């Protein structure tokens, strides 16, 4: 996997699939990476342009139609992104292969990425000649045989697995099958960034080209000046989707106006926010769209070199990117004089090594330069002095994935997508205790209620949603009564939350908000780079205070006192860390504490005053008891107890000394009689 991530030149071990679409239609087509043709992209749709030949025209149109469909004959698409794979997509693929060989059925298997509805993974789509593409869900390695049998043996295309169909003008008679886009989960979504995710083959440049990839790049390179490109992005109102929400066009303009012989663009794909996985989905499912956005960004600011800083935890994303870059090089969409312009561009993948702080832009720079990923004071901003001291633009994956649609469909279209003057759409990663998990793309500014209840389907059966955590460790918790808040950059801040990168973790009554605050503080404490004191020391102290509150004060009177004093200091400490930290990580570190204190103060009070966790989630506050009628005196619990808090003789019922018990639950785990119970 690591073979060559320094240079992106196509030197990978595996053969790069050749692009059929870009193969010359006859001798008169002269395009090659060495002799690039400016009409390359335009020619795909309306070609040939340089000569008139009906045969060439038909040949090109046929190739395009095949590429758009995904291949010829019967096609079987399997959603094999990371979440698909976790649900057994690779096993399903090998089972389908076995089935096809056994029954001697001719069909082509195509691996796609993630369609976004992770809850119903694995998705298997089948498209037979003369039929629309039909999507089947909830497929697993155990039931795939059943699905294949229904379709290919019994001819039952409409069966319990059927999820919907994709629109297809060439076929008719399938109107009774609902469209995929009309399913309750998708109906209220507005897909721009995720448009092709899960639909196209992410390993095929042709599949992307057939659906309009690189048209925006061609438009920018051939018809627009860098100034116009920046102005267009600024006019669209696109704001950084990584968390800070800075206007992308303005960032580009600053970098463009800073004179320098060498500039850089960097795609921040170090999606470290726990609870966020939209960037992974884009990287795995539609890598060409990201490359196109990066290319346009490079052109707009005058950079010839791009970096993609991707987490090493996403091996599949890195593989997809490597394949995509190699294919673009092969046909001249990356490299020297792209589309016969003076613009040359090369992309290098840098693997992150696991540091949350490397999501901060100056920390990324330090990391790419080979050092410890520690942020530095801004200004100068990277757009003025960034990588190796050169002007550098850093954009998040989702931001760059928005660039192509903005250029092809126009800035006013994008600016009008949102609600109440907000621009564009935002992808949210919906997870936690909610019915439908997955990726949701909605116009910026829709009410939270719509995302959680209409699309997400609300709470799990028998439970009640208590709060939604938005923005990861830098964000806050929004309690249920505030669900009508508009999800845009400004409104969320009034509740002490932030948009962040778009992780939405839903919590029900089983989650304890103090425990959640403690969880985030532990994360931030571990991830603080240690450069500035407020963050390094402050987060550690805040964690200690929260840890103290969520464990039982055993024995010592002093500890009881400390718990009271701690909570008094917590709020003050949080404000200090917020105001005095160097970078965004520290400045937002206190948000989870401040927001839970604001909305769930009663839970803190129960922990401190009553030594009780109302949700029963804080293991440190649990009290266990042994049901004497069930205990057989096997002494297992007594041996397992780290505190020697369990007394009792062999073959006699045991009991727990409450004062010594720290609530670790070790006894409950080892008990074979289920005699250890949580005392409420």
């Amino acid at each position, binding site marked *: 996997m690591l073979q060559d991530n320094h240079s992106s030149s196509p030197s990978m071990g595996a053969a790069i699939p050749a692009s059929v679409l870009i193969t010359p239609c006859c001798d008169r087509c002269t395009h090659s990476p060495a002799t690039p043709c400016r009409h390359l992209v335009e020619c795909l749709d309306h070609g040939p342009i340089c000569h008139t030949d009906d045969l060439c025209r038909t040949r090109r149109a046929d190739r395009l139609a095949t590429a758009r469909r995904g291949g010829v004959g019967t096609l079987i698409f399997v959603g094999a992104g990371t979440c698909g794979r976790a649900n057994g997509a690779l096993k399903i693929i090998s089972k389908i292969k076995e089935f096809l060989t056994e029954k001697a059925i001719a069909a082509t298997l195509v691996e796609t990425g993630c369609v976004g509805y992770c809850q119903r993974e694995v998705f298997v789509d089948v498209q037979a000649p003369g039929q629309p593409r039909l999507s089947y869900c909830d497929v697993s390695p155990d039931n795939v045989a059943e699905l294949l049998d229904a379709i290919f043996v019994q001819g039952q295309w409409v069966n319990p697995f059927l999820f919907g169909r994709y629109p297809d003008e060439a076929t008719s008679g399938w109107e009774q099958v609902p469209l995929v886009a009309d399913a309750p989960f998708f109906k209220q979504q507005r897909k721009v960034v995720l448009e092709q995710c899960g639909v196209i083959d992410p390993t095929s440049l042709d599949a992307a080209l057939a659906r309009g990839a690189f048209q925006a790049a061609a438009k920018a390179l051939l018809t627009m000046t860098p100034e116009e490109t920046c102005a267009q992005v600024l006019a669209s109102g696109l704001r950084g989707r990584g968390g800070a929400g800075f206007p992308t066009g303005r960032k580009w303009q600053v970098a463009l106006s800073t004179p320098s012989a060498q500039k850089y663009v960097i795609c921040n794909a170090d999606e470290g926010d726990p609870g966020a996985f939209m960037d992974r989905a884009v990287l795995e499912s539609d890598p060409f769209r990201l490359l196109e956005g990066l290319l346009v960004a490079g052109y707009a600011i005058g950079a010839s070199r791009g970096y993609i800083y991707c987490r090493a935890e996403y091996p599949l994303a890195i593989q997809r990117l490597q394949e995509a870059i190699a294919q673009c090089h092969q046909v001249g969409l990356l490299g020297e004089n792209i589309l016969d312009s003076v613009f040359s561009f090369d992309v290098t993948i840098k693997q992150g*090594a696991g540091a949350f702080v490397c999501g901060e832009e100056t920390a990324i720079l330090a990391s790419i330069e080979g050092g410890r990923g520690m942020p530095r004071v801004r200004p100068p901003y990277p757009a003025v002095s960034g990588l190796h001291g050169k002007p550098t633009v850093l954009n998040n994956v989702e931001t760059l994935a928005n660039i192509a649609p903005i250029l092809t469909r126009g800035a006013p279209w994008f600016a009008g997508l949102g609600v109440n003057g907000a621009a564009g759409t935002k992808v949210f990663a919906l997870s936690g205790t909610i019915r439908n998990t997955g990726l949701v793309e909605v116009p910026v500014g829709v009410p939270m209620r719509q995302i959680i209840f209409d699309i997400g389907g609300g709470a799990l059966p028998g439970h009640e949603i208590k709060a939604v955590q938005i923005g990861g460790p830098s964000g806050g918790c929004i309690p249920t009564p505030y669900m009508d808040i508009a999800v845009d950059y400004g409104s969320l801040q009034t509740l002490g939350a932030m948009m962040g990168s778009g992780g939405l973790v839903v*919590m029900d009554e089983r989650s304890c908000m103090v425990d959640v605050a403690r969880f985030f503080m532990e994360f931030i404490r571990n991830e603080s780079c240690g450069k500035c004191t407020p963050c390094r020391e402050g987060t550690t102290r805040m964690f200690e205070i929260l840890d103290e509150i969520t464990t039982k004060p055993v024995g010592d009177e002093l500890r009881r006192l400390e718990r009271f004093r701690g909570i008094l200091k917590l709020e003050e400490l949080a404000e200090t860390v917020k105001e005095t930290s160097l970078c965004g990580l520290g400045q937002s570190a206190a948000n989870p504490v401040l927001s839970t204190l604001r909305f769930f103060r009663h839970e803190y009070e129960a922990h401190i005053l009553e030594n009780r966790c109302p949700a029963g989630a804080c293991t440190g506050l649990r009290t266990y008891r042994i049901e004497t009628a069930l205990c057989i005196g096997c002494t297992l619990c007594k041996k397992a107890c780290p505190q020697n808090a369990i007394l009792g003789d062999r073959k006699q019922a045991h009991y727990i000394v409450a004062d010594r018990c720290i609530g670790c639950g070790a006894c409950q785990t080892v008990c074979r009689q289920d005699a250890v119970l949580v005392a409420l």
Partner: protein
Amino acid sequence: MRSVEEILTAWGDRSPESLIPLLQQVQEAQGYVPRAAMTRLAAALGMPVARVYGVATFYNQFRFTAPGEHIIEICRGTACHVRGSAALLDHLRRRLKVDAEGNSRDGRFTLITVACLGACSLAPVIRLDGEFYGGLTIEKLDQLLDAVEQQPRRAATAAVSPVAAPPAATCQCEHQRG
């Protein structure tokens, strides 16, 4: 297994920018970053060993002791936490007899906690030897580990290469992080 020398030969660039990719390749090849490899990289890149060590210990990805046969990465992201990954982690620690992170006593497993694996919709998730397993409960996890334990043990040569120092000789100063 590629040795550090082979990695250095294949990687022409000697700029400081190469440090992290080289460390990653060493770990990929040998399972961890041995002390000797850090010294060798420092010499090759013309930088103090302290700098190499400083960078290597800054990032969560790098390990400094040889891993066990099977690597369990448990996701501690928010969604996994809400869906009970803390209990899974406690269980794994008890079952494998590991204090916080590291190798089980029999050397079969290495337990690593990861901030987020990015498969939040399937929480709680672990990655066992690179493969994801989602929607876990303690029972499912036990079944999974039982199945792995029943596999024959791999040869005991594990991850020791000519340049690799035995685990005991790795940096003594590697802090005993809790």
